[in-house]
């Protein structure tokens, strides 16, 4: 009985938080719908806020849990017997403000992580943005950067990704990692030029053992491939020479008669430690090889939908001839997409994606000779994706299925989810990450045992 009372008190408290007092009184009821204007003047939210603080503060609290759908002994061992690889309480605070013509933002997460049994802070954004003259905008500091036309497929967007968050069931926003960078954008009448300089290399948060298992050709000892949850980053170093190891990303964009055209250039490093030479020789750690990328994209309305195409050449600078072991080969990457509302409230997005490895024959022969033929992959890796989104209740309820299927690798990755927006403050969501494939070494197949289901509740304030 006493517990019930406590529960009710807590529920009452939450309800009073969920319904902001400003809404309760001053909007007109059905009949008069507020046609007397006494109700308006005093209650617009920003008036109260700006008078009190020089900046604006907002954020959210989120609880998330994700459990394995299959037994995954290597990960469960790495996590000390836990059958879940996501279990956390997270508070994000964001502070926004202006000073003269500059704008600043500070955003950080405090995470109580049940998997790692530790607290940690994550700085998401710490930036200042300001115009420089009439035609230039500058944004400096820690920031989230995105460009390119793909949907969850990235060719010319080499900005850091947090794949671990993506694969274990955190909010899709967390896929975009943070860059410590200086972004300068020049707007001319014809072309917009973006130049992003990251003084220090920012790697991806790639699947790194621990929470996620993956395939290693040497998991069971030399020549014995298998599933492992051993840390990759422990065996890797990052380029960290300032300013030599910084990264540059350039984009030129223009629009003509509704069609968007873009050119891209990138000078930096592979986002994951693909230089295995020292590791293989037993003389040191893996590192991130040099990478240049040149690409282009186009996006345009077509019929009832939006069509896009993007291409990029991945120039593996230290292995242009394709004859060096332990280094990635250059690749062409191509993407075609189409997105439209097939029936009311049902959106369909389709993509075709290709990775064409250069000098694949030489790679195959080398891998074969080393006794790990499976690591050569296919010369042409084809991938199809579909995103189905069905919304009800004017978008408050959203069903979504994103599917990656590779006919060449014989593997797949499904991301079903449902999201219910209970109120402006509270959102509940549930979903899964389901992987499968014929080979345990293929891109998605290696995560088969990492398949998981998750639920999240987010309360915004």
């Amino acid at each position, binding site marked *: 009985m006493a517990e019930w009372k406590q529960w009710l008190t807590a529920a009452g408290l939450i309800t009073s938080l969920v319904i902001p007092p400003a809404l309760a009184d001053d*909007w007109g009821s059905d009949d008069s719908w507020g046609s007397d204007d006494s109700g308006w003047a005093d209650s617009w939210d920003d008036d109260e806020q700006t008078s009190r603080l020089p900046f604006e503060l907002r954020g959210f609290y989120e609880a998330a849990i994700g459990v394995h759908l299959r037994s995954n002994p290597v990960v469960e061992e790495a996590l000390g017997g836990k059958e879940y690889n996501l279990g956390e309480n997270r508070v994000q605070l964001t502070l926004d403000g202006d000073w003269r013509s500059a704008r600043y933002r500070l955003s950080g997460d405090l995470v109580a992580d049940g998997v790692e049994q530790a607290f940690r802070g994550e700085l998401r954004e710490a930036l200042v943005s300001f115009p420089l003259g009439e035609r230039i905008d500058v944004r400096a500091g820690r920031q989230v*950067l995105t460009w390119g036309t793909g949907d969850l497929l990235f060719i010319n967007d080499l900005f850091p990704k947090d794949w671990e968050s993506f694969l274990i069931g955190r909010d899709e*926003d967390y896929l975009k990692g943070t860059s410590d960078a200086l972004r300068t954008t020049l707007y001319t009448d014809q072309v917009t030029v973006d130049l992003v300089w990251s003084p220090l290399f920012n790697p991806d948060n790639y699947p790194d053992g621990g929470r996620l298992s993956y395939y290693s050709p040497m998991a069971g000892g030399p020549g014995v491939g298998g599933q492992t949850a051993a840390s990759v980053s422990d065996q890797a170093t990052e380029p960290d020479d300032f300013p030599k190891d910084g990264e540059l990303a350039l984009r030129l964009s223009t629009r003509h008669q509704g069609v968007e055209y873009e050119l891209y250039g990138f000078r930096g490093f592979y986002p994951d430690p693909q230089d295995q030479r020292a590791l293989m020789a037993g003389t040191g750690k893996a590192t991130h090889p040099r990478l240049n990328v040149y690409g282009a994209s186009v996006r345009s309305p077509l019929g009832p939908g*939006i069509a896009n195409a993007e291409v990029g050449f991945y120039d593996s600078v230290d292995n242009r001839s394709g004859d060096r072991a332990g280094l990635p080969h250059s690749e062409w990457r191509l993407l075609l997409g189409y997105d*439209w*509302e097939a029936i*009311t409230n049902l959106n369909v997005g389709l993509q075709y994606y290709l990775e064409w490895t250069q000098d694949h024959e030489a790679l195959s022969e080398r891998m074969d000779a080393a006794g790990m033929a499976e690591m050569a992959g296919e010369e042409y890796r084809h991938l199809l994706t579909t995103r189905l989104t069905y919304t009800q209740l*004017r978008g408050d309820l959203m069903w979504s299925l994103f599917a990656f299927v590779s006919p060449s690798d014989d593997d797949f990755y499904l991301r079903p989810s449902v999201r219910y927006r209970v109120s402006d403050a509270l959102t509940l969501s549930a979903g899964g990450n389901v992987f499968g494939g014929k080979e345990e070494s293929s891109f998605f197949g290696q995560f088969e045992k990492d398949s998981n289901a998750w639920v999240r509740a987010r309360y915004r304030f």
Partner: protein
Amino acid sequence: MNTLIKKTAGLMGALALATGLATAQAATPSVTEIIERANQASYYAGQDGRSEARMRIEDSRGNTQTRQFTVLRRNLEDQGRQQYLVVFSRPSEYRDTVFLVEKNPAAEDDRWLYLPDMDLVRRIAPGDKRTSFVGAHLFYEDISGRHLEDDEHRLVEETAEHFVLESTPKDARSVEFARYRTWINKDTWLPERIEYTNASGNVYRIMENAGVEVIDGYPTPTMMRVQDLESGGQTIVQFRGIRYDLGIPASVFTERSLRNPPRQWLEGR
């Protein structure tokens, strides 16, 4: 409905009465002229304009949500191409979300949505225009206006205060309505009520404008309501800080404003 018309008439005052008399005696304008003048009054007033808006979204169980945003608009041609920039401030989930529209009555509109958390510029498919605008009972199309050419219009009734038009879609598959009726005020040329009828002949959606005030010389509704009779929900929109002919430059309606909303124009009151 009647009270609404009376209130509006009252707001218009003596001016409305005087011109109303003159209108009544003049010959009935053509349907084309009526829809063009209504379109002008609703979406093209001034060379440009700004307005703050907030919406209260109510479902049938009385749950409410709010949205608050500022709209900037600029005309490129008479009754033709236009640009819209919509910048959200509330709720916190939508803060700094920006919606950019290039309205193009001769073809399809170009529309972009900027999602600040991922720094993502998403382009919205042309076919996707009669779905909910940010969770409201309004559609994307209600924000920047439906193309006049998409429907056949005819005058079905003329009262002392209104022209009543009935419009049927040229491409019935592209919309959820079978037809709609519009009550256009003869003095202000503003549509005061639109009733949407479905294929089974029932009115299922009603849109109303009210609280008309003359601002910078243009009669302007300061309230709007959209009722969804099927679900029992409704959205009420209130406007404030409305101004016209500010001289908003073209550069405001570009991708630059997605990442860096033009505060000078957004806060210009």
